[in-house]
């Protein structure tokens, strides 16, 4: 068998469940005939109409797609990256400094339990309306898994690894970059993966207030126009985006954590 055919079979093997689910969904919705639950084909044609029926020179993307999807993606990425940097830095500080964690922990646990929409007024007060405020909302909403997992990972580094580091007089930087960070990495990645999809969710929430574009805004717009295929279309778009982002993430993770995968492989 050729390599291409092998690859095809592998991908097919991975995705076989998708058509099954789609067909089941179509059949179920067609029999139920509920206007709230349009069949996937209807959703697909609405999605096509909304986003993919543009002119060829725009890669068949409509103006709506070009306006809303990139803006939303921009918000997601900047929010996620910011949350990653802040979350890892703060998480490691919390994990490694008992003192610091004693002072800050209650505030963090407090912040974690606050519904992000409830803090919108504060963000609206602190940040300029629009992208800045939305990114702030996303960061606030998704930072917790990264923060918690990072601080957990940093707190529970194998003691002997740390002792080795001190015995050889590792500098603070080396200790951090070479010992603590790599050994917390698997947990940090779990956090990053969780918050990547949370970022999509928070993007929607942040676009619900005072916003004029974005996927979340479109979702809201469809909702209040009672455009059910449109609502479902936005949801499907989010799901597809999430799937794509997650796949890219896993590919990156596989490269970065390769030692981890093979080291812990069982035979």
């Amino acid at each position, binding site marked *: 068998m050729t390599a291409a055919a092998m690859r095809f079979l592998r991908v097919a093997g991975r995705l076989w469940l998708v058509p099954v689910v789609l067909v089941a969904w179509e059949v179920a919705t067609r029999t139920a005939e509920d206007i709230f639950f349009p069949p996937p084909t209807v959703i697909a044609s609405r999605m096509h109409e909304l986003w993919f029926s543009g002119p060829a020179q725009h890669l068949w993307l409509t103006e709506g797609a070009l306006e809303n999807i990139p803006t939303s993606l921009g918000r997601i990425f900047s929010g996620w990256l910011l949350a990653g940097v802040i979350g890892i830095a703060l998480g490691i500080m919390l994990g490694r400094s008992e003192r610091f964690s004693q002072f800050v922990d209650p505030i963090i646990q407090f912040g974690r339990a606050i519904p992000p929409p409830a803090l919108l007024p504060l963000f609206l007060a602190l940040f300029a309306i629009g992208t800045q405020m939305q990114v702030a909302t996303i960061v606030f909403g998704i930072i917790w898994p990264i923060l918690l997992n990072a601080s957990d990972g940093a707190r529970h580094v*194998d003691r*002997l*690894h740390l*002792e*080795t580091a*001190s*015995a*050889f*007089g*590792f*500098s603070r930087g*080396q200790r951090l970059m*070479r*010992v603590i960070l*790599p*050994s917390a*990495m698997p947990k940090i990645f779990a956090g990053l993966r969780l918050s990547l999809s949370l970022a999509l969710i928070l993007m929607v929430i942040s676009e619900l207030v005072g916003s004029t574009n974005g996927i979340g805004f479109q979702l809201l717009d469809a909702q209040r126009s009672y455009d059910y295929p449109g609502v479902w279309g936005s949801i499907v778009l989010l799901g597809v985006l999430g799937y794509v982002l997650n796949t890219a993430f896993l590919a990156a993770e596989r490269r970065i954590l390769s*030692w*981890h995968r*093979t*080291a812990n492989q069982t035979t």
Partner: protein
Amino acid sequence: MLEISNLDHTYGSGPGAHHALGGIDLRVTQGELVCIVGPSGCGKSTLLRSIAGLLKPTGGTITLNGTPVDRTPDDLAVVFQDYSRSLFPWMSVGDNVALPLRRKGMDRGQRRAAAEEALEQVGLAGASGKYPWQLSGGMQQRVSIARALAYRPSLLLMDEPFGSVDAQTREDLEDLTLRVRNHHNMTILLITHDIDESVYVGDRVVVLAKAPATVVGDLRVDLPGPRDQITTRENPAFVHLRAEVGRLVRGMRSHPAAAS
């Protein structure tokens, strides 16, 4: 150089407490190689960890070059008993060895070369690109020895460093340790269970008794140098000393003076 007086350590507290070290006095001079022997679980590793500043003893003092040890002293290297867990699985063997050398102000190329050399010395030429978990137990142990030797510390602490290698390799590593020590005037504390080894390699052999650990013997090894695996071990003085240490470890005192 190293002065330990009345060192005492108790693990935990309450009914589950364990009194591991019971007042240890020890003095090691610059450039000496002191072997520490004693029954399993007597407190050798505990002593070593205290000297390395990794464990805060509950009593007594340790001073190194005049300053009390309350954190890990500079210019120290340790070969841990649990060598496999002390290697970083996310780094290649070469990086594991080269990493501490950053402290020595070496540049990338120098570090790499020094790591390669150290690995070759322990018989692991060509393994530097592998990961620790791709090596056998004995090879991992040798990586951790290479890491310590490449670092050229002024004080080297080794906790049963040659336990997982075959006899031939063990002898090579003993000789390597002696050579490196002589070249770089290191002070070495070496824990071992092999009495022959302790006499062969040490300038002094310190014998610890069990629970809580105390020094029950401190024998000077007066063997002609340079040592040699065959001639030294045939030396009558060697045979005598080894019997003496053996008796001490087994709890029979050779002569009153040796008792603490």
